[in-house]
Protein backbone atom coordinates (compact mmCIF):
# COMPACT_ATOMS: atom_id res chain seq x y z
CA UNK A 1 0.00 0.00 0.00
CA UNK A 2 1.63 3.28 -1.08
CA UNK A 3 0.83 6.72 0.29
CA UNK A 4 1.74 10.09 -1.14
CA UNK A 5 2.18 13.06 1.18
CA UNK A 6 1.17 16.64 0.46
CA UNK A 7 1.37 19.41 3.02
CA UNK A 8 2.23 22.99 3.78
CA UNK A 9 1.72 25.71 6.32
CA UNK A 10 0.98 29.44 6.02
CA UNK A 11 1.52 32.15 8.60
CA UNK A 12 -1.83 33.67 9.43
CA UNK A 13 -2.65 37.09 8.09
CA UNK A 14 -3.47 38.31 11.61
CA UNK A 15 -0.08 36.97 12.77
CA UNK A 16 1.60 38.87 9.94
CA UNK A 17 -0.21 42.06 10.95
CA UNK A 18 0.69 41.55 14.62
CA UNK A 19 4.26 40.49 13.82
CA UNK A 20 3.76 37.09 15.44
CA UNK A 21 5.39 33.92 14.13
CA UNK A 22 3.63 31.00 12.54
CA UNK A 23 2.82 28.85 15.56
CA UNK A 24 1.78 25.80 13.52
CA UNK A 25 4.09 22.94 12.63
CA UNK A 26 3.85 19.83 10.53
CA UNK A 27 6.01 16.91 9.48
CA UNK A 28 6.06 13.35 8.20
CA UNK A 29 8.15 10.20 8.17
CA UNK A 30 7.94 7.53 5.54
CA UNK A 31 9.77 4.22 5.76
CA UNK A 32 9.22 0.82 4.21
CA UNK A 33 7.21 -0.14 7.30
CA UNK A 34 5.06 2.92 7.84
CA UNK A 35 3.96 6.43 7.00
CA UNK A 36 3.46 8.94 9.82
CA UNK A 37 2.04 12.42 9.52
CA UNK A 38 1.52 15.09 12.17
CA UNK A 39 0.31 18.68 12.46
CA UNK A 40 0.28 20.88 15.56
CA UNK A 41 -1.09 24.30 16.41
CA UNK A 42 0.68 26.20 19.17
CA UNK A 43 -1.73 28.27 21.28
CA UNK A 44 -1.58 31.91 20.33
CA UNK A 45 -2.33 33.54 23.68
CA UNK A 46 0.48 35.54 25.22
CA UNK A 47 0.96 33.17 28.13
CA UNK A 48 1.86 30.41 25.64
CA UNK A 49 4.73 32.47 24.30
CA UNK A 50 6.84 29.50 23.16
CA UNK A 51 4.02 27.54 21.63
CA UNK A 52 5.67 27.58 18.21
CA UNK A 53 8.53 25.56 19.71
CA UNK A 54 6.02 23.36 21.55
CA UNK A 55 4.20 22.64 18.29
CA UNK A 56 7.40 21.71 16.49
CA UNK A 57 8.43 19.40 19.34
CA UNK A 58 4.99 17.81 19.38
CA UNK A 59 5.33 16.94 15.71
CA UNK A 60 8.90 15.64 15.99
CA UNK A 61 8.20 13.51 19.02
CA UNK A 62 4.91 12.14 17.74
CA UNK A 63 6.58 11.05 14.51
CA UNK A 64 9.40 9.40 16.42
CA UNK A 65 7.02 7.60 18.75
CA UNK A 66 4.72 6.37 16.00
CA UNK A 67 7.63 5.18 13.92
CA UNK A 68 8.80 3.07 16.86
CA UNK A 69 5.27 1.87 17.46
CA UNK A 70 5.06 0.62 13.88
CA UNK A 71 8.09 -1.59 14.37
CA UNK A 72 6.16 -3.98 16.64
CA UNK A 73 5.24 -7.33 15.17
CA UNK A 74 1.67 -7.28 13.98
CA UNK A 75 -1.00 -8.83 16.10
CA UNK A 76 -4.32 -7.02 16.54
CA UNK A 77 -4.61 -7.64 20.30
CA UNK A 78 -1.02 -6.65 20.90
CA UNK A 79 -1.37 -3.47 18.83
CA UNK A 80 -4.54 -2.53 20.70
CA UNK A 81 -2.89 -3.05 24.07
CA UNK A 82 0.22 -1.12 23.07
CA UNK A 83 -1.91 1.72 21.76
CA UNK A 84 -3.36 2.16 25.24
CA UNK A 85 0.02 3.40 26.43
CA UNK A 86 0.65 5.77 23.54
CA UNK A 87 -0.99 8.83 25.06
CA UNK A 88 1.06 8.68 28.26
CA UNK A 89 4.25 7.97 26.34
CA UNK A 90 3.63 10.86 23.98
CA UNK A 91 3.03 13.34 26.81
CA UNK A 92 6.16 12.15 28.61
CA UNK A 93 8.30 12.35 25.47
CA UNK A 94 7.05 15.85 24.71
CA UNK A 95 7.65 17.01 28.28
CA UNK A 96 11.18 15.61 28.22
CA UNK A 97 11.84 17.49 24.99
CA UNK A 98 10.43 20.70 26.50
CA UNK A 99 12.64 20.32 29.58
CA UNK A 100 15.62 19.93 27.32
CA UNK A 101 15.00 23.05 25.23
CA UNK A 102 13.75 25.15 28.11
CA UNK A 103 16.89 24.72 30.21
CA UNK A 104 14.88 25.81 33.26
CA UNK A 105 14.23 29.26 31.81
CA UNK A 106 10.56 29.05 32.84
CA UNK A 107 9.28 28.02 36.29
CA UNK A 108 8.39 24.33 36.52
CA UNK A 109 4.70 24.97 37.26
CA UNK A 110 4.22 27.00 34.07
CA UNK A 111 6.73 25.35 31.79
CA UNK A 112 4.56 23.00 29.75
CA UNK A 113 1.77 25.55 29.46
CA UNK A 114 4.18 28.08 27.97
CA UNK A 115 4.84 25.62 25.13
CA UNK A 116 1.16 24.59 24.85
CA UNK A 117 -0.02 23.10 21.59
CA UNK A 118 -2.56 20.84 19.96
CA UNK A 119 -1.54 17.75 17.98
CA UNK A 120 -3.12 15.63 15.28
CA UNK A 121 -1.21 12.63 14.05
CA UNK A 122 -1.70 9.51 11.94
CA UNK A 123 0.25 6.28 11.59
CA UNK A 124 -0.30 4.04 8.60
CA UNK A 125 1.11 0.57 8.23
CA UNK A 126 0.31 -2.32 5.94
CA UNK A 127 -2.27 -3.61 8.42
CA UNK A 128 -3.77 -0.68 10.24
CA UNK A 129 -4.17 3.05 10.63
CA UNK A 130 -3.88 4.78 14.00
CA UNK A 131 -5.36 8.24 14.58
CA UNK A 132 -4.44 10.35 17.59
CA UNK A 133 -5.50 13.89 18.50
CA UNK A 134 -5.47 16.34 21.36
CA UNK A 135 -7.22 19.68 21.05
CA UNK A 136 -8.90 21.39 18.14
CA UNK A 137 -8.19 20.94 14.46
CA UNK A 138 -9.72 18.66 11.88
CA UNK A 139 -8.95 15.07 11.07
CA UNK A 140 -11.02 13.74 8.20
CA UNK A 141 -10.89 10.73 5.94
CA UNK A 142 -12.30 10.18 2.48
CA UNK A 143 -13.52 6.73 1.55
CA UNK A 144 -12.95 5.17 -1.84
CA UNK A 145 -16.57 6.05 -2.64
CA UNK A 146 -16.06 9.72 -1.77
CA UNK A 147 -17.65 9.90 1.68
CA UNK A 148 -16.06 12.14 4.29
CA UNK A 149 -15.73 10.80 7.85
CA UNK A 150 -14.21 11.96 11.13
CA UNK A 151 -12.47 8.93 12.63
CA UNK A 152 -12.36 10.55 16.07
CA UNK A 153 -15.69 12.36 15.86
CA UNK A 154 -16.08 16.10 16.19
CA UNK A 155 -15.44 17.68 19.56
CA UNK A 156 -18.53 19.81 20.11
CA UNK A 157 -17.14 21.25 23.33
CA UNK A 158 -14.86 23.71 21.63
CA UNK A 159 -16.28 27.16 21.01
CA UNK A 160 -14.56 30.49 20.90
CA UNK A 161 -10.96 29.38 20.35
CA UNK A 162 -10.88 27.07 23.36
CA UNK A 163 -8.94 23.87 23.06
CA UNK A 164 -7.39 21.03 25.00
CA UNK A 165 -3.64 21.19 25.18
CA UNK A 166 -0.65 18.91 25.22
CA UNK A 167 0.76 21.38 27.73
CA UNK A 168 -2.03 20.86 30.26
CA UNK A 169 -1.45 18.90 33.44
CA UNK A 170 -4.23 16.48 32.51
CA UNK A 171 -3.24 16.24 28.83
CA UNK A 172 -3.32 12.43 28.85
CA UNK A 173 -7.04 12.48 29.72
CA UNK A 174 -7.85 14.53 26.61
CA UNK A 175 -5.95 12.56 24.00
CA UNK A 176 -8.31 10.71 21.71
CA UNK A 177 -7.18 7.87 19.55
CA UNK A 178 -8.42 5.02 17.44
CA UNK A 179 -6.85 2.08 15.64
CA UNK A 180 -8.60 0.67 12.58
CA UNK A 181 -7.41 -2.66 11.19
CA UNK A 182 -7.72 -3.02 7.46
CA UNK A 183 -9.06 -6.54 7.72
CA UNK A 184 -12.17 -5.02 9.35
CA UNK A 185 -12.23 -1.48 7.89
CA UNK A 186 -11.17 -0.69 4.36
CA UNK A 187 -8.27 1.76 4.20
CA UNK A 188 -9.34 5.31 3.42
CA UNK A 189 -8.49 6.81 0.06
CA UNK A 190 -7.29 10.02 1.67
CA UNK A 191 -6.51 11.26 5.17
CA UNK A 192 -6.70 14.97 5.82
CA UNK A 193 -5.25 16.85 8.79
CA UNK A 194 -5.65 20.59 9.31
CA UNK A 195 -5.22 23.11 12.08
CA UNK A 196 -8.42 24.95 13.09
CA UNK A 197 -7.59 28.04 11.03
CA UNK A 198 -8.56 26.07 7.94
CA UNK A 199 -12.08 24.97 8.97
CA UNK A 200 -12.72 28.39 10.51
CA UNK A 201 -12.20 29.93 7.08
CA UNK A 202 -15.21 28.20 5.55
CA UNK A 203 -18.73 29.45 5.93
CA UNK A 204 -19.81 26.03 7.21
CA UNK A 205 -18.80 22.40 7.68
CA UNK A 206 -19.90 21.66 4.13
CA UNK A 207 -17.16 23.96 2.80
CA UNK A 208 -14.53 21.94 4.66
CA UNK A 209 -15.88 18.57 3.48
CA UNK A 210 -15.99 19.99 -0.03
CA UNK A 211 -12.30 20.91 0.30
CA UNK A 212 -11.37 17.33 1.21
CA UNK A 213 -13.24 15.99 -1.80
CA UNK A 214 -11.80 18.69 -4.07
CA UNK A 215 -8.25 17.83 -3.03
CA UNK A 216 -8.85 14.24 -4.08
CA UNK A 217 -10.33 15.34 -7.40
CA UNK A 218 -7.58 17.87 -8.12
CA UNK A 219 -4.85 15.36 -7.28
CA UNK A 220 -6.51 12.87 -9.64
CA UNK A 221 -6.70 15.47 -12.41
CA UNK A 222 -3.35 17.22 -12.04
CA UNK A 223 -1.10 14.90 -10.00
CA UNK A 224 0.62 15.50 -6.67
CA UNK A 225 3.33 17.93 -7.63
CA UNK A 226 1.12 20.76 -8.97
CA UNK A 227 -1.14 20.52 -5.90
CA UNK A 228 1.87 20.61 -3.61
CA UNK A 229 3.14 23.65 -5.51
CA UNK A 230 -0.18 25.47 -5.16
CA UNK A 231 -0.88 24.57 -1.54
CA UNK A 232 1.18 27.27 0.19
CA UNK A 233 -0.46 30.05 -1.82
CA UNK A 234 -3.93 28.54 -1.31
CA UNK A 235 -3.41 28.44 2.45
CA UNK A 236 -2.23 32.05 2.48
CA UNK A 237 -5.32 33.12 0.50
CA UNK A 238 -7.52 31.06 2.78
CA UNK A 239 -6.17 32.82 5.84
CA UNK A 240 -6.62 36.19 4.15
CA UNK A 241 -10.20 35.56 3.03
CA UNK A 242 -11.21 33.53 6.06
CA UNK A 243 -10.08 33.13 9.65
CA UNK A 244 -6.84 35.13 9.52
CA UNK A 245 -5.23 32.37 11.60
CA UNK A 246 -2.14 30.27 10.84
CA UNK A 247 -3.19 27.38 8.62
CA UNK A 248 -1.57 24.00 8.12
CA UNK A 249 -2.91 21.25 5.91
CA UNK A 250 -1.32 17.82 5.54
CA UNK A 251 -2.76 15.06 3.38
CA UNK A 252 -2.05 11.39 2.85
CA UNK A 253 -3.31 10.04 -0.44
CA UNK A 254 -3.53 6.36 -1.21
CA UNK A 255 -1.92 5.73 -4.55
CA UNK A 256 -1.71 2.66 -6.72
CA UNK A 257 1.78 1.17 -7.01
Amino acid at each position, binding site marked *: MAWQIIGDTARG*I*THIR*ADKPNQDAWGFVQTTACTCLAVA*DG*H*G*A*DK*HYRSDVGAQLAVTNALELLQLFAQQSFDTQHIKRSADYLAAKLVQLWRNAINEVDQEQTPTDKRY*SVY*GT*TLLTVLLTEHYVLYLQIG*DGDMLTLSATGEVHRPLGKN*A*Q*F*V*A*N*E*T*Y*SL*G*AEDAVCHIEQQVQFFKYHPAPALIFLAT*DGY*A*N*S*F*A*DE*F*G*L*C*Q*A*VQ*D*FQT*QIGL*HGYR*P*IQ*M*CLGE*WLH*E*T*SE*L*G*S*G*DDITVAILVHCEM
Partner: protein
Amino acid sequence: MTNTIKRPGGAMATRPLHFFWLADCSGSMAGEKIESLNYAIRNAIKPMQDVAAANPNAQVMVRAIRFSTGAEWHIAQATPVEQFVWDDLKACGVTDMGVALTMVAQQLEVAFMPDRCLPPVLVLVSDGQPSDDFNAALETLMRKPWARKSVRIGIGIGYDADMEVLQKFIGNSELKPLLAHNAEELVNYIRWASTVVLQAASAPASQVKHKQSQGVVPIPHFPSASIVIDDVW
Protein backbone atom coordinates in the same frame (compact mmCIF):
# COMPACT_ATOMS: atom_id res chain seq x y z
CA MET B 1 -0.61 25.43 -15.12
CA THR B 2 -0.84 25.81 -11.34
CA ASN B 3 -2.65 29.12 -11.86
CA THR B 4 -5.54 27.29 -13.49
CA ILE B 5 -6.19 24.90 -10.62
CA LYS B 6 -9.12 25.97 -8.53
CA ARG B 7 -8.54 26.36 -4.81
CA PRO B 8 -10.30 23.45 -3.05
CA GLY B 9 -13.28 23.95 -0.78
CA GLY B 10 -16.61 25.69 -0.49
CA ALA B 11 -17.40 29.33 0.16
CA MET B 12 -14.97 31.19 2.39
CA ALA B 13 -16.07 33.58 5.09
CA THR B 14 -14.56 35.69 7.80
CA ARG B 15 -15.57 34.85 11.36
CA PRO B 16 -18.75 36.45 12.73
CA LEU B 17 -18.43 38.47 15.92
CA HIS B 18 -21.77 39.32 17.51
CA PHE B 19 -21.86 42.53 19.53
CA PHE B 20 -24.88 43.20 21.77
CA TRP B 21 -25.82 46.47 23.43
CA LEU B 22 -28.17 46.03 26.40
CA ALA B 23 -29.43 49.47 27.28
CA ASP B 24 -31.39 50.52 30.33
CA CYS B 25 -34.34 52.70 29.27
CA SER B 26 -36.11 52.88 32.61
CA GLY B 27 -37.75 56.09 33.78
CA SER B 28 -34.74 57.07 35.89
CA MET B 29 -32.70 57.32 32.70
CA ALA B 30 -34.96 60.08 31.37
CA GLY B 31 -33.36 63.38 30.50
CA GLU B 32 -29.64 63.85 30.42
CA LYS B 33 -28.71 60.20 31.04
CA ILE B 34 -30.56 58.77 28.05
CA GLU B 35 -29.45 61.69 25.88
CA SER B 36 -25.85 61.05 26.91
CA LEU B 37 -26.17 57.34 26.21
CA ASN B 38 -27.62 58.01 22.75
CA TYR B 39 -24.84 60.49 22.06
CA ALA B 40 -22.13 58.15 23.39
CA ILE B 41 -23.19 55.19 21.27
CA ARG B 42 -23.66 57.31 18.15
CA ASN B 43 -20.28 58.87 18.78
CA ALA B 44 -18.69 55.41 19.06
CA ILE B 45 -19.96 54.12 15.71
CA LYS B 46 -17.16 55.51 13.57
CA PRO B 47 -14.33 54.33 15.89
CA MET B 48 -16.07 50.96 16.09
CA GLN B 49 -16.20 50.75 12.31
CA ASP B 50 -12.52 51.71 12.13
CA VAL B 51 -11.56 48.90 14.51
CA ALA B 52 -13.65 46.45 12.50
CA ALA B 53 -12.00 47.61 9.27
CA ALA B 54 -8.58 47.02 10.80
CA ASN B 55 -9.61 43.44 11.63
CA PRO B 56 -11.00 42.24 8.31
CA ASN B 57 -11.03 38.59 9.39
CA ALA B 58 -13.81 39.35 11.87
CA GLN B 59 -17.28 40.23 10.60
CA VAL B 60 -18.73 42.40 13.35
CA MET B 61 -22.52 42.20 13.63
CA VAL B 62 -24.36 44.55 15.96
CA ARG B 63 -27.66 44.13 17.80
CA ALA B 64 -29.26 46.08 20.63
CA ILE B 65 -31.89 45.46 23.29
CA ARG B 66 -33.65 48.17 25.27
CA PHE B 67 -35.14 47.25 28.59
CA SER B 68 -37.55 49.09 30.85
CA THR B 69 -40.98 47.58 31.55
CA GLY B 70 -40.16 44.39 29.67
CA ALA B 71 -37.55 44.43 26.96
CA GLU B 72 -37.49 44.56 23.21
CA TRP B 73 -35.07 44.54 20.36
CA HIS B 74 -33.87 48.00 19.41
CA ILE B 75 -31.81 46.48 16.59
CA ALA B 76 -33.27 43.04 16.00
CA GLN B 77 -31.33 41.95 12.94
CA ALA B 78 -27.62 41.24 13.31
CA THR B 79 -26.39 44.27 11.40
CA PRO B 80 -22.94 44.48 9.81
CA VAL B 81 -21.06 47.21 11.69
CA GLU B 82 -20.54 49.08 8.42
CA GLN B 83 -24.33 49.59 8.27
CA PHE B 84 -24.82 50.20 11.98
CA VAL B 85 -26.87 53.31 12.77
CA TRP B 86 -28.30 54.32 16.12
CA ASP B 87 -31.88 55.49 16.61
CA ASP B 88 -32.45 57.37 19.83
CA LEU B 89 -33.71 55.47 22.84
CA LYS B 90 -36.47 56.89 25.01
CA ALA B 91 -36.81 56.32 28.74
CA CYS B 92 -39.83 55.28 30.81
CA GLY B 93 -40.91 52.37 33.00
CA VAL B 94 -39.03 50.02 35.32
CA THR B 95 -35.75 48.08 34.94
CA ASP B 96 -36.51 44.58 33.63
CA MET B 97 -32.87 43.70 33.05
CA GLY B 98 -33.56 40.00 33.47
CA VAL B 99 -35.87 39.94 30.45
CA ALA B 100 -33.08 41.46 28.37
CA LEU B 101 -30.63 38.79 29.49
CA THR B 102 -33.11 36.07 28.62
CA MET B 103 -33.55 37.54 25.15
CA VAL B 104 -29.80 37.55 24.58
CA ALA B 105 -29.58 33.98 25.88
CA GLN B 106 -31.97 32.86 23.15
CA GLN B 107 -29.64 34.29 20.51
CA LEU B 108 -26.56 32.60 21.95
CA GLU B 109 -27.70 29.09 21.09
CA VAL B 110 -25.05 27.13 19.19
CA ALA B 111 -27.72 26.57 16.53
CA PHE B 112 -27.65 30.33 15.77
CA MET B 113 -23.95 30.79 16.43
CA PRO B 114 -21.77 27.99 15.05
CA ASP B 115 -18.46 27.17 16.68
CA ARG B 116 -16.46 29.16 14.12
CA CYS B 117 -17.84 32.43 15.50
CA LEU B 118 -15.64 34.66 17.59
CA PRO B 119 -16.58 35.20 21.24
CA PRO B 120 -19.59 37.54 21.42
CA VAL B 121 -19.42 40.86 23.23
CA LEU B 122 -22.24 41.89 25.59
CA VAL B 123 -22.26 45.45 26.90
CA LEU B 124 -24.79 46.13 29.65
CA VAL B 125 -25.47 49.78 30.50
CA SER B 126 -27.72 50.63 33.47
CA ASP B 127 -28.37 53.35 36.01
CA GLY B 128 -30.34 51.34 38.53
CA GLN B 129 -31.36 48.07 40.07
CA PRO B 130 -33.18 45.28 38.28
CA SER B 131 -36.92 45.19 38.90
CA ASP B 132 -37.26 41.55 37.82
CA ASP B 133 -35.49 38.28 38.64
CA PHE B 134 -32.02 39.17 37.42
CA ASN B 135 -30.34 36.18 39.09
CA ALA B 136 -32.56 33.59 37.42
CA ALA B 137 -32.08 35.30 34.05
CA LEU B 138 -28.32 35.43 34.50
CA GLU B 139 -28.35 31.73 35.32
CA THR B 140 -30.31 31.04 32.12
CA LEU B 141 -27.85 33.12 30.15
CA MET B 142 -24.78 31.46 31.62
CA ARG B 143 -26.06 28.00 30.77
CA LYS B 144 -25.30 28.80 27.12
CA PRO B 145 -21.75 27.85 26.11
CA TRP B 146 -21.40 31.05 24.08
CA ALA B 147 -22.46 33.16 27.06
CA ARG B 148 -19.76 31.57 29.21
CA LYS B 149 -17.19 32.44 26.55
CA SER B 150 -18.55 35.90 25.90
CA VAL B 151 -16.88 39.16 26.77
CA ARG B 152 -19.21 40.89 29.22
CA ILE B 153 -18.83 44.56 30.06
CA GLY B 154 -20.92 46.42 32.63
CA ILE B 155 -21.26 50.19 32.66
CA GLY B 156 -23.12 51.92 35.46
CA ILE B 157 -24.55 55.41 35.04
CA GLY B 158 -24.61 57.53 38.17
CA TYR B 159 -24.44 56.62 41.85
CA ASP B 160 -27.71 54.68 41.87
CA ALA B 161 -26.35 52.07 39.49
CA ASP B 162 -26.20 48.63 41.11
CA MET B 163 -22.53 47.83 40.65
CA GLU B 164 -22.92 44.49 42.39
CA VAL B 165 -25.38 43.38 39.73
CA LEU B 166 -23.06 44.58 36.97
CA GLN B 167 -20.18 42.68 38.59
CA LYS B 168 -22.31 39.54 38.68
CA PHE B 169 -23.07 40.03 35.01
CA ILE B 170 -19.36 40.33 34.20
CA GLY B 171 -18.66 37.20 36.25
CA ASN B 172 -14.94 37.83 36.43
CA SER B 173 -13.51 39.32 39.60
CA GLU B 174 -10.52 40.67 37.68
CA LEU B 175 -12.71 42.84 35.49
CA LYS B 176 -14.69 45.50 37.33
CA PRO B 177 -17.77 47.35 36.07
CA LEU B 178 -17.20 50.96 35.06
CA LEU B 179 -19.13 53.73 36.77
CA ALA B 180 -19.82 56.82 34.69
CA HIS B 181 -20.29 59.88 36.89
CA ASN B 182 -20.98 62.24 34.02
CA ALA B 183 -21.58 62.42 30.30
CA GLU B 184 -17.92 62.67 29.44
CA GLU B 185 -17.05 59.49 31.32
CA LEU B 186 -19.94 57.67 29.69
CA VAL B 187 -18.68 58.65 26.25
CA ASN B 188 -15.21 57.37 27.14
CA TYR B 189 -16.48 54.08 28.51
CA ILE B 190 -18.77 53.43 25.58
CA ARG B 191 -15.96 54.23 23.19
CA TRP B 192 -13.62 51.90 25.09
CA ALA B 193 -16.15 49.05 24.90
CA SER B 194 -16.69 49.72 21.20
CA THR B 195 -13.02 49.82 20.29
CA VAL B 196 -10.55 48.30 22.78
CA VAL B 197 -12.89 45.49 23.78
CA LEU B 198 -13.97 44.90 20.19
CA GLN B 199 -10.33 44.77 19.11
CA ALA B 200 -9.53 42.16 21.79
CA ALA B 201 -12.48 40.02 20.78
CA SER B 202 -11.74 40.34 17.06
CA ALA B 203 -8.46 38.49 17.13
CA PRO B 204 -8.47 36.18 20.14
CA ALA B 205 -5.69 33.64 20.46
CA SER B 206 -6.27 30.00 21.35
CA GLN B 207 -6.76 29.37 25.05
CA VAL B 208 -6.58 26.13 26.94
CA LYS B 209 -9.96 24.81 27.99
CA HIS B 210 -10.40 24.84 31.75
CA LYS B 211 -13.22 23.43 33.82
CA GLN B 212 -13.97 26.84 35.31
CA SER B 213 -13.47 29.22 32.45
CA GLN B 214 -13.91 32.94 32.95
CA GLY B 215 -13.98 33.56 29.23
CA VAL B 216 -11.52 33.22 26.44
CA VAL B 217 -10.61 36.83 25.68
CA PRO B 218 -8.25 38.72 27.95
CA ILE B 219 -9.67 42.24 28.19
CA PRO B 220 -7.34 45.14 28.84
CA HIS B 221 -8.37 47.24 31.82
CA PHE B 222 -9.82 50.66 31.21
CA PRO B 223 -6.98 53.16 31.65
CA SER B 224 -7.02 54.83 35.06
CA ALA B 225 -9.21 57.88 34.95
CA SER B 226 -7.66 61.29 35.20
CA ILE B 227 -11.07 62.89 34.74
CA VAL B 228 -12.18 65.42 37.33
CA ILE B 229 -15.57 64.35 38.61
CA ASP B 230 -17.57 67.54 38.48
CA ASP B 231 -20.72 67.01 36.48
CA VAL B 232 -22.10 64.31 38.75
CA TRP B 233 -25.37 62.55 37.91
